[in-house]
Every structure is written in structure tokens, then in C-alpha cells.
């Protein structure tokens, strides 16, 4: 198992905080964790891809195949759940 910071345990709080900060930096507005980012028009196609790339590099993940679906990226809460699940799978 790798010992990089990417593989140290992360908590839901930490993932959520990272994502909220990333979204705020990119959209220049505070975002509620349960806001539907796509329905709200906050996230463009380009930004959606950036979000995927950010999640992968910030948390040392690969999000591919069946995990790459809208519902997993719709809200900060959904993305947090995805990160925690994928890290658990990767560690296991």
C-alpha cells in the first residue's frame, strides 16, 4: 500500500470541506452541500469534467466506467459518498 498523503484515511467532513472550497473558488459563491449543481446551472459541461479530475487528483482515485454517472456528481453530499466508497474499495 502506498504511503502518500492521498492514501491516508479521509473523513466525510474533510472531503465535504475540500469540495465546498473547490466549488466556491471556481464559482465564486458559497454552495450548499445538497444543492443540485447541474439543475442549478452552476456546473457547465467543462466544469463537470474539471470536478472529476479534481476528485481523482485530490483523493488519489480513478473514477471510471459505471461510476462516471450524473447522480454521483449531482451534489457535494453525493460526491463525498462516492469518494469514501471508492477509497474503501481501493484500500480493500
Amino acid at each position, binding site marked *: 500500500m502506498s504511503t502518500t498523503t492521498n492514501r491516508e484515511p479521509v473523513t466525510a467532513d474533510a472531503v465535504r470541506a475540500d469540495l465546498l472550497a473547490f466549488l466556491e473558488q471556481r464559482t465564486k459563491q458559497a454552495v450548499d452541500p445538497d444543492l443540485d449543481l447541474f439543475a442549478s446551472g452552476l456546473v457547465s459541461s467543462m466544469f463537470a*469534467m474539471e470536478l472529476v*479530475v479534481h476528485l481523482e*487528483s485530490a483523493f488519489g482515485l480513478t473514477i471510471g*466506467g459505471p461510476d462516471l454517472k450524473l447522480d454521483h456528481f449531482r451534489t457535494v453530499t453525493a460526491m463525498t459518498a462516492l469518494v469514501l466508497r471508492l477509497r474503501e474499495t481501493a484500500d480493500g
Partner: protein
Amino acid sequence: MAEPYAEAAALATGLAADAAAGWDLAGELPRAVLRELGVKGVLCAQVPPDHGGLGLSSVDNGELTAHVGTLCGSLRSVLTSQGMAAWAVQRLGTARQRAAHLTALTGGALAGVAFSEPGAGSDLAAMETTLTVEGDEVVVDGAKVWVTVGAYADLLVVIGKLAGQAGCVVVPADAPGVRVTRVPDPLGCRAAGHADVRFDRVRLPADALLGGTALPLGMLVTTVLTYGRISVAWGCAGMLRTCLAEAARHVSARRQGGVALSEHQLVRRHLAGLYVAERSATLACARASRCWDEGDPDLGGAAVLAKHVAATGAAAGAATAVQLLGSAGARDGHPVARAYRDAKLMEIIEGSNEISELVLAEEALRTWA
């Protein structure tokens, strides 16, 4: 030179350097050449070694793509198409799908990626091709146009509407209901095998659907096209290098008014413009590829910027090169004549100049407003 792409670049040089003019005039790439480059992993060089690829980084594959771009725009288009197909599989496919398709793509099979439709070019939301899951099958129905490599392809990676969103399916070109019609007289990249493809209720096992899932169309297209944009951009940088070399050699050797052309200030201005175009394209490409390799979320915007800088630079630069060479470069098959025609197409594909500008304006507002 011991760059990781050196061997692949040398192979491409050996196959294409003396033959590319003839390929352009004939409008055809020899299958044997495509097969040889395919089985050696050169056509989609970022595929990892465990799937038969060379496992190059985006930066290294970019330099390889630029090198092929210096030799032949049609062959470089094949690299873009095959690489984009491989990336779609890698990104969207399951482990099993990756193993099957990536091994095929590094084993000699050729792939085209089908986005555009008769009524949906820049406005891909108007796409009408449908993917419908029926039991354990998926049915593909629709018409695609200008599929690069379409005429040579064994596999067609098709984007279509799926369950109110969009999906991506891998269709064998010989499946019943697939009809490939070659574009007979493309303006540029004449040997790249552009084709229109009809899918008449093509039934495939449901496993042909990558990841078995649907994504918003824009997100899917952006994901797949980002690879294509970076690849086209590097190819344009390569075209500019050829134009620069041809122009610099010509103006140094050719004399007018008792002096070398290069002694004329107006000629020097042209040369400076070409040099600026090549350097800016290369720098923008290198940045986009570094974003790719480092997982930098600025990737999407950096890819569009690189594509736009490189394509507009190549179109203008190739016109300059033809101007500088005069009658010496004004014949089909000549490297600058090919670049002139090929570069114009690069301002249209993988996001036209105008679409790129809309994306870049959005970035500008996000950053600076």
C-alpha cells in the same frame, strides 16, 4: 535522443517521410502501414502497457503526435481518432471492456469516433442518434457524418442519446445494419478515411455500451473530446514545424533582387509570425498535457486554449508558408500545400474556432469578471 517516444517516432518517419505526399494525392493510407503502427501501439500511445500500449504520458504522446504531424496530417488524424477511441474506452468502460477493446486497439484494429450528425455539428445537443437498451441488447439507430478513419475502421465508438442523457457504444464496423460511405473529396487530411456512417437499428450485446451507463451529453462529449483537442493541437504544432522548416530553408536559398529572400524585411516578418505561431502552439500544448499528466482540473480549459492557439496558428502559418514558397509550394502533395488544406480543417473539428472562443470567453469571465 532517448525520449520514450523515440522508437515510435523513428518508425513513423521510416514509413511516412517519403510516402506522405503520395498518400495525399491518392487520398489513401496503406492498410499495412496503419496495421504496423497499430500493433506497435503508436496509434494510441497512452494506452497502458498491460493493455498492449506504450504507456506514454500526455506530454510524450504529444511530442510523438507533433512528430507525426510534421510528416503527414492524414496519419496524424488517425492517431487522434484511435487515441480518442482508446481514451473513451479507458474512461468510460468497465475493467472487462477496457481489457477487450484496448487490447484490440493495440493489436491492429482501427477505430473511428462518431460525434457529428447531418443536423448536429457544433450543436451536439441536436444529436438524434439513439442507443436503446432492449433486454440484454443495445440498439443503435442514427446517422453520423465526417467520422475520421471511418473508411478504415474495424470499430466505431458512437455517441448517442441514451435514457434521456447520453451514452457511448462500441460498434463493430461489420455489424449488420452499419453502412459506411466514404467522403469522396475532403478538403484536407485527404487520406484520413473520413466517412459518413449509417446505423440502421444495429443490435449488439448490451455489453457494447461502455460502462452500461448514461451521462449528460455535454459531460460525455467534453470528456472524450478533451483528448482529441490536445491531440489535434499537437498535430497543428507539428504542421507549423514543417511550415517553418520549409519556409526557412526556402527563403535562405532563394534569391530575389540580388539578395536572399531572407534579407527582405517583409519576408522576415512572415518568418517571425510562423516562429511565434509554432512556439505558442507548443507552449500551449505542453501546458495542456502537463494538466493531463498531473490531474490538474484546469485541463478542460487548457485543452481548448491549446487547440485554439494551435489550429488558428497553423491555418495562418500554413498560408504564410505557401506565400513564402510561392510557386515552389503551390502544388498538391507539397508539405506546405498539404498543411494549408489540412490546417483549415483543424479550425473546424474538435470544436470549431467559434465554439472554442465561446468556451474561452466563459473562462475569461470566470477568472477576470
